[in-house]
């Protein structure tokens, strides 16, 4: 299996890739730090990856996306599976008063992903095969005062993915929306860990399972599905009074 990973240094992505490496996958790893990509490459190679090609780039810069994908497919062959995992968690308080903060968060978490997906969808569509697995978030299911800038970017992404899935279904291409809850990764280092936090390995196994099953939307761990169902069902008049 040929797998392209955008944001390959993400803790969640690494956990999933380890499992695919054990199955002898071939990888294109894209991320913005050469040292870190090398560290991930070494790990996946020991775990059984056949080939690992790295590509060092800032993924929020959309101007290079087409070229990166072109070169990546030339290096390892047409992608069977793409995992888009990069993201940033902005400081909500700063983003409330400084538009630039909000803009950057929305650009990285939403717009730049749309750019990658546009290019990837074109290619997979003509091949009538492939899976696009993209990490969104439960935070995108409803806007909350503590996290709505990030939530809006992920919410926009989830809606975009639903539409893309609808379109590509008819072309034989699968689109998987991954919605993690709380995961103990560098991104959440500053957040106090409650009982709902899980280790990246749990997410990795969940992503691999969802891809294997050909799922459309995967809440990970599963218990976030009923939790988010309840959160979405609260009437807005009540919800706006809550402190969430």
């Amino acid at each position, binding site marked *: 299996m040929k797998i392209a990973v955008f944001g390959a240094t993400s*803790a969640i992505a*690494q956990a999933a890739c380890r499992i695919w490496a054990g199955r002898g996958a071939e990888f294109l790893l894209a991320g913005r730090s050469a*040292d*870190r990509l090398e*560290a*991930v490459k*070494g*790990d996946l190679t*020991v*775990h059984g990856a056949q080939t690992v090609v790295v590509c060092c780039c800032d993924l929020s810069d959309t101007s290079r996306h087409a070229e990166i994908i072109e070169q990546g497919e030339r290096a390892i062959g047409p992608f069977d599976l793409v995992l888009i995992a990069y993201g940033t968690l902005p400081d909500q308080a700063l983003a409330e008063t400084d538009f630039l903060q909000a803009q950057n968060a929305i650009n990285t978490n939403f717009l730049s992903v749309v750019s990658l997906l546009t290019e990837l969808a074109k290619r997979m569509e003509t091949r009538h095969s492939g899976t696009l697995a993209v990490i969104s978030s439960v935070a995108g299911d409803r806007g909350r005062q503590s996290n709505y800038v990030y939530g809006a970017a992920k919410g926009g992404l989830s809606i975009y993915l639903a539409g893309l899935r609808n379109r590509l279904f008819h072309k034989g291409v699968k689109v998987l929306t991954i919605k993690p809850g709380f995961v*103990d*990764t*560098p991104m959440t*280092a500053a957040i106090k*860990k409650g*009982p709902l*936090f899980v280790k*990246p390995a749990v997410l990795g196994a969940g992503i691999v399972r969802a891809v294997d099953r050909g799922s459309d939307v995967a809440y990970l761990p599963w218990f976030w599905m009923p939790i988010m169902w309840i959160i979405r069902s609260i009437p807005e008049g009540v919800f706006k009074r809550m402190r969430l």
Partner: protein
Amino acid sequence: MDDYQSWGRYPQVTQSVLGFNWRGDKLPTLSGKSILAQGFCRSYGDSCLNENNVVLSTRALDRMIAFDPASGVLRCESGVSLEQILNLAVPQGWFLPVTPGTKFVSVGGAIANDVHGKNHHRAGTFGRHVRAFELLRSDGSRRVCSERSDGGLYAATIGGLGLTGVITWAEIQLRPILNPFIEMESIKFRSLEEFFQISADSDRNFEYTVAWLDCVSSGSAFGRGIFMRGNHSRSENDKTRKIPGRQKLVVPLDFPAWALNRLSVKAFNTLYYGKQVAREKKSSVYYDPFFYPLDAVLQWNRIYGKNGLVQFQCVVPVQGGHQAIREILATIVASGQASFLAVLKEFGAISSPGILSFPRPGVTLCLDFAMRGERTLALLQRLDQMVAQAGGAMYPAKDALMRAENFKSYYPRWAEFAEYVDSQISSSFWRRVSR
């Protein structure tokens, strides 16, 4: 509940936690605060804690770097767990050269406590199998230490309690196995004399030896237990034998304090000893239940409730006779405070490379005490004194209250070691024993 406290949950401290996630990262610079690398917090007392200061968690530093299945040499980051190593190496015919009683410890933690296992008499400590490691110091320097290069720092870091720098990666020599099964025997013994007899008989022919000891019963049952010994299976048939699946249990909450009382512990000991009817029993088992029986119950430390537990592990010499260990055991039995997890083993004579390593020739006894305040502390202080008088040593990985002066007698080379301690690194344990 992952709150970066130690396994015994005593003492509990306030400290900040930062992640050390990539081996190329710099150490954080903090004004006026010290740092301490922290692995999986499987140390019981305060050696992995840094009260009012900072711990650097290595849990995301868990990548493999290189593995040569022909020679069994593995290079990995220091936050890699022994479980990860087993998952990678066992299917390729390799095993840990030394393993403690849980696989949920990091390579960095295994080096920093120079851990030992059931094969100490054969293989010595974990540190003996560490060919090299990289040490990141607070001045920003990175040194690759081995016996040959930077030998002083190498010897100080093995068993060095995290105080000499942060280990970023290490290279370990694994040992070959034919299959993942262990041929084991268990033998009941009725007294300490019998234990020493069986132990002496077993050391020659068995790679792994350890005993479970009843620390509750007195009178004619004093010193009884079950001796377990084993070897890696050499049977060709075991290569294709089915690997048993294992169910994991989790203790989701702290048990109430009354759940473990004298009666329940006594009942456990009687049942456990009585469970094996025959004096000798042979079986062939998968490595996991043989080495890691407790790992089947995740977070078992919560059985002790929110007050936690304190562990006690000492080693005392046996050349002059068994009087010291007998008296220590008698004191424990008389206190009525022991719990059901007590382990007895004879260490061998293979010396450790570490300046501060704990294992040394003698017999080691290890057990838990539910933390019941003053009377538990008083008992442990008394035991600490007895160990010091016997010319033995207590194990920092399991300790929350050895006296500073006793530490210095247990580890006579401590001043030589102190020369290697990084000026920006400290721990609750170190402040307690080095004052």
